[in-house]
């Protein structure tokens, strides 16, 4: 028995989880219908795939949610897990699942996948026969991902950085790298049986004034880490920046460099997809206006030529959306994508050059770290603040980078902390903003910029 398989046996032996029958699972995946694989749909690539978010505590309500989505001609079903599962607190998840089942009231903000187990969940997924994407935010997702793959969920979101820095306070970062290495290995293994499993990174991060250069660097790193383990299909992603131009520039640079780095690191055969997230920051507390924001994002997603769009709902500011509302969002988005035609190809040479320079400088800093493996290089870079995510709750993150919006809504870096940005780039960033004199005014401007869509 291989070392990995031993580890897998240990991981999956958990009092809250199903007992795993790996032979049966392999057999299931090898014979699973192509329809369940998002990679199969990406191959056709004839239109932007639409995916909402969504998870309810009970099996019954989750099933209803899927039924409702199917009525809206959905492309990709989501399975969003609750926040206890995200932090491996299966005991709390179990308690709240029971309460939800007994009281017809949702006591969890997602579907506790581990507690439900793969045998049960697989029934639902094969019933609907649509690709399902796992949305979580879990630093240690090993058991969760084993359960997901065994259930027929063949797209796994997350990564050691994007599911750590925004989602955890003090989970050890080095462990996260090793745990995600495990996830990638398992995905790569199963990818050999049928269509490849798709891995997706979570570009929005904290969704709070994160500058594009940091988003892109983290996307490239998580992509390289996955490809290193043998993953053959990977989606990089980002969310609306707040400036249409910055979205376009981000998309152009991200696409170009993702392909370039993948090739340079020997993964010419890997497929790279682009995912666009509708506005991930604070939504207006007005459903009509939220609808406008959502539709504007759909237009931009088409303009940046994404392969998949992950959508929001008019209930965003209020709480977990009802299923009807969520399905309506899917229908709305599909309508706009169907009728919106004649999209111009756009670029902004100056902005793109600047962003590319920034990303290359940060990537060089990572690669020049003396450590022996890529993940250790990255670990060191984050620890020393060379990569730094604004508004991360995590203790390891430096929180020294300060960003603000310019007149055109572009996120600009006004304090670069320890980011190894070329002088010229930093000067460019600063030249775009007129900073207020007093510190209080700067803080007020930042608060205002966080609420850009209110």
């Amino acid at each position: 028995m291989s070392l990995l398989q031993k580890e897998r046996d240990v991981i999956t032996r958990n009092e809250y989880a199903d007992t795993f029958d790996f032979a049966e699972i392999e057999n299931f995946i090898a014979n699973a219908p192509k329809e369940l694989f998002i990679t199969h749909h990406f191959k056709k690539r004839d239109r932007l795939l639409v995916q909402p978010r969504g998870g309810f505590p009970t099996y019954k309500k989750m099933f209803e949610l899927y039924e409702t989505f199917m009525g809206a001609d959905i492309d990709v079903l989501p399975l969003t897990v609750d926040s206890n599962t995200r932090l491996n607190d299966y005991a709390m998840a179990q308690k709240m699942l029971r309460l939800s089942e007994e009281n017809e009231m949702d006591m969890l903000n997602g579907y506790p996948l581990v507690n439900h187990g793969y045998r049960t969940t697989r029934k639902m997924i094969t019933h609907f026969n649509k690709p399902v994407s796992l949305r979580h935010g879990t630093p240690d997702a090993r058991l969760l991902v084993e359960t997901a793959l065994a259930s027929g969920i063949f797209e796994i979101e997350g990564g050691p950085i994007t599911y750590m820095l925004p989602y955890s306070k003090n989970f050890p970062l080095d462990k996260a790298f090793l745990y995600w290495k495990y996830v990638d290995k398992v995905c790569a293994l199963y990818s050999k049986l049928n269509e490849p499993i798709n891995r997706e990174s979570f570009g929005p991060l904290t969704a709070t004034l994160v500058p594009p250069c940091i988003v892109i660097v983290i996307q490239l790193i998580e992509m390289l880490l996955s490809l290193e383990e043998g993953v053959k299909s990977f989606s990089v992603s980002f969310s609306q920046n707040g400036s249409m131009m910055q979205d376009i520039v981000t998309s152009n640079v991200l696409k170009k460099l993702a392909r370039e780095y993948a090739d340079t690191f020997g993964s010419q055969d890997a497929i790279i997809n682009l995912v666009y997230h509708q506005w991930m920051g604070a939504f207006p507390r007005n459903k009509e206006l939220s609808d406008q924001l959502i539709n504007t994002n759909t237009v931009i997603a088409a303009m940046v030529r994404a392969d998949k769009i992950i959508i929001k709902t008019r209930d965003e500011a209020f709480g977990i959306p009802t299923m009807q509302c969520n399905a309506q969002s899917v229908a709305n988005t599909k309508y706009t994508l169907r009728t919106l035609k004649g999209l111009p190809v756009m670029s902004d040479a100056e902005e793109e050059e600047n962003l590319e320079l920034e990303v290359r400088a940060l990537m060089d800093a990572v690669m020049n770290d003396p450590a022996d493996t890529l993940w250790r290089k990255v670990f060191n870079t984050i620890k020393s603040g060379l990569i730094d995510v604004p508004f991360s709750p995590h203790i390891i993150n430096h929180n020294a980078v300060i960003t603000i919006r310019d007149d055109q809504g572009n996120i600009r870096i006004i304090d670069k902390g320890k980011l190894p940005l070329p002088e010229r780039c930093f000067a460019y960033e600063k030249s775009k903003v007129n900073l207020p004199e007093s510190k209080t005014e700067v803080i007020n401007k930042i608060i205002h910029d966080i609420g850009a869509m209110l």
Partner: protein
Amino acid sequence: MKVVTGVVGNDIHVVANRLIDISLQARGFEVFNLGVNTSLEEFIDAVVETDADILLISSLNGEAEGWCRDLQFLRSEYNLREDVIFVIGGNLAVGEANQDDIIPKYRSYGFDLVFHQVDLNTGLDELERYVKERA
């Protein structure tokens, strides 16, 4: 006055928490910010340790109810000062809920002030008024 604050449960929404920190300091409070992902026990511990006057809990992701039902129990177990003010705010239910259902419920759990989907500054203004009235 001393305030212990933070975000309860497995909740990692940090943005409001950062702003609360800034606002409380600007209003002259002495702030002990435990940050996100903080259990109810940790909060009560910190109140005891710092001898705080106010415990101000945030919850955004819908977990609040699962955690806060035990407040009364912990309060007596830790033998807290009688006059500590208990405040909770943010988004206090999973899914859409209205204030009229939410406020009495959290009052019964032992909170003095409950702010469901209330703007930060509106809430802190009311807290200051409440503090003055009690003095």
